[in-house]
């Protein structure tokens, strides 16, 4: 068959009943078909710290998990709310500084600083972002990009919160196992939690805001209110990552407002597959270790890094997970036209 005469026919596997979300499972095989991917992910993440060759790579896993939290928050906002957020650095910085202040000035242990800074940081971020929530378009992206730059300059110029030196002497986690398993469990919790959330009724409202905000208003719901809830959730996840990061590094400084935290999650989302939530996590687990491996090349690594990104955008712009899910859930075959 030549190219003109054939097309690819795609058939769904016959375990879905009419719609996404209702499955008819008839055998253990079908059950394992659904549970295996999830199991592989969970078990894989949990044994990851055990198989790492050195403490350095164990530390990398923790950092990867923090980027994963940011990527989750980006994917959630971008593909379920329609808000493109460049605020990874903003969330990390806010959460990180709050955790550092709570720990050094008030003496709270990480057990308390992490939840408090997640909620307090989320509240602060949501409040600061509130003015641009009723607007459509690029404003949200611009404002989220602006805040980390502004906050870093303010801390620098006024020499508050440790100034350019940052806040030293933040308590670390009790040991490195607790540190790693805590961040891994947080990634798993928010990955599955967000997947559940976007399929719940309130999650449908979020997705409706993305598709058609006017119709949501016409149904008597304030889109600003629902956007604020979603931004609260997303920035809370980001601030949690920031708080963990501060306790891992035992230091909080203006480098936590670095744009890396905004850009790498977006790159990871491109590679992993937008809108899948698990894709961005996977993307982080590919990108961040590559970044570490290439550290030997110095600044030259940016070039290699960019090439990987460009290759993905050109050859697999849908991302790994979207491609993988399609291959997994559907049969494909060539049919003659």
């Amino acid at each position, binding site marked *: 068959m030549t190219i003109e005469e054939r097309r690819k026919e795609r058939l769904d596997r016959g375990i879905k009943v009419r719609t996404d979300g209702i499955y008819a499972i008839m055998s253990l095989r079908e059950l394992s078909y659904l549970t295996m991917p999830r199991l592989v992910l969970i078990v894989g993440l949990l044994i990851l710290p055990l198989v790492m060759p050195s403490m350095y790579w164990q530390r990398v896993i923790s950092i990867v998990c923090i980027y994963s939290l940011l990527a989750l928050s980006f994917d959630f906002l971008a593909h379920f709310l329609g808000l493109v957020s460049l605020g990874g650095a903003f969330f990390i910085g806010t959460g990180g500084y709050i955790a550092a202040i709570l720990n050094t000035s008030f003496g709270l242990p990480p057990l308390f600083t992490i939840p408090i800074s997640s909620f307090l940081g989320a509240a602060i971020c949501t409040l600061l972002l509130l003015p641009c929530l009723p607007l459509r378009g690029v404003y949200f992206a611009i404002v989220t990009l602006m805040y980390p730059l502004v906050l870093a300059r303010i801390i620098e110029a006024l020499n508050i919160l440790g100034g350019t030196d940052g806040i030293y002497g933040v308590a670390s986690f009790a040991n490195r196992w607790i540190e790693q398993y805590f961040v891994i469990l947080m990634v798993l919790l928010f990955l599955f939690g967000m997947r559940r959330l976007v399929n719940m009724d309130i999650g449908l409202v979020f997705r409706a805001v993305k*598709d058609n905000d006017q119709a949501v208003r016409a149904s008597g719901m304030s889109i600003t209110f629902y956007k604020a809830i979603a931004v609260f959730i997303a920035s809370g996840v980001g601030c949690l990552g920031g708080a963990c990061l501060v306790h891992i590094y035992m230091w909080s400084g203006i480098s936590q407002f670095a744009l890396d935290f905004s850009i790498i999650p977006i790159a990871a989302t491109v590679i992993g597959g937008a809108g899948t939530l698990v894709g961005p996590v996977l993307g982080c687990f590919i990108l961040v270790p590559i970044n570490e491996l290439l550290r030997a090349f110095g600044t030259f690594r940016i070039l290699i890094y960019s090439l990987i990104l460009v290759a993905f955008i050109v050859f697999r712009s849908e991302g790994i997970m979207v491609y993988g899910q399609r291959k997994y859930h559907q049969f494909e075959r060539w049919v003659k036209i």
Partner: protein
Amino acid sequence: MNNQPILQVQETTKAFGGVIAVNRVSLDVNEGEILGIIGPNGSGKTTLINCITGFIKMTSGKVLFRGKDISGKPAHKIADMGITRTFQIMRPYYSLPCYKNLVIPLFSPRAKRTGGWRGGGKLGDRDTVSIDILEEIGFERDSFVPYKIASTLPTGYLKRLELARCLAVKPEIIICDEIFSGLSMSEIASMVPLIERLQMDGITLIMIEHRLRELFRVSNRILVLNFGEKVIEGTPEEIMADEKVKEVYFGSEEVEEVMSHA
């Protein structure tokens, strides 16, 4: 039922810069009636209902709903009071299956308060209720149609889905913006009884329409707009007989056809 009109629009004006889209239009809508609004393209029909429903801010004027001033309130507050609308350009929630489209209005504060359409929001889960609504509005329950992703549906179903989205919040007034446009004759023929049934359910309807024959059949009163100003208001018979309306629609074949049938 008292005799006070359910919706009073008083001297509404909307100016976009120097262009006056709606100029001092007043109208009363009585409870339970169907009011048709007609007029040539660009005569300010959609702008008028955008003003009423709060999607754009009117330059001056007042809108009273059951005697209460609602002008200047945000769109979602007005919808929450029971005035819902369909959109001329239908944009369902494309990425969601059809029945999930209705979960969103059923989740709204108004639907939670009133129980949604026929109280179903309080009785069952929202998925079940939304399929009930879809069946009532002309989706076949046992077919695949209600479960399809909304972006794959044909226009006829999308128009019904727009109407269903309004119904789900148990509205008092539905404003339909060209609900017949883009439909085939047979699809319109099946929509007309639906509109009549909504009226029997006690819902007040305001319909903007270009399909005059069907509109004249269902509506109790007609309002004609031209260049943003009210030309005439009256029963369909009065409108058909009126000289000024013929002038407004001069050259439009359909009007002449409708007129000749009258």
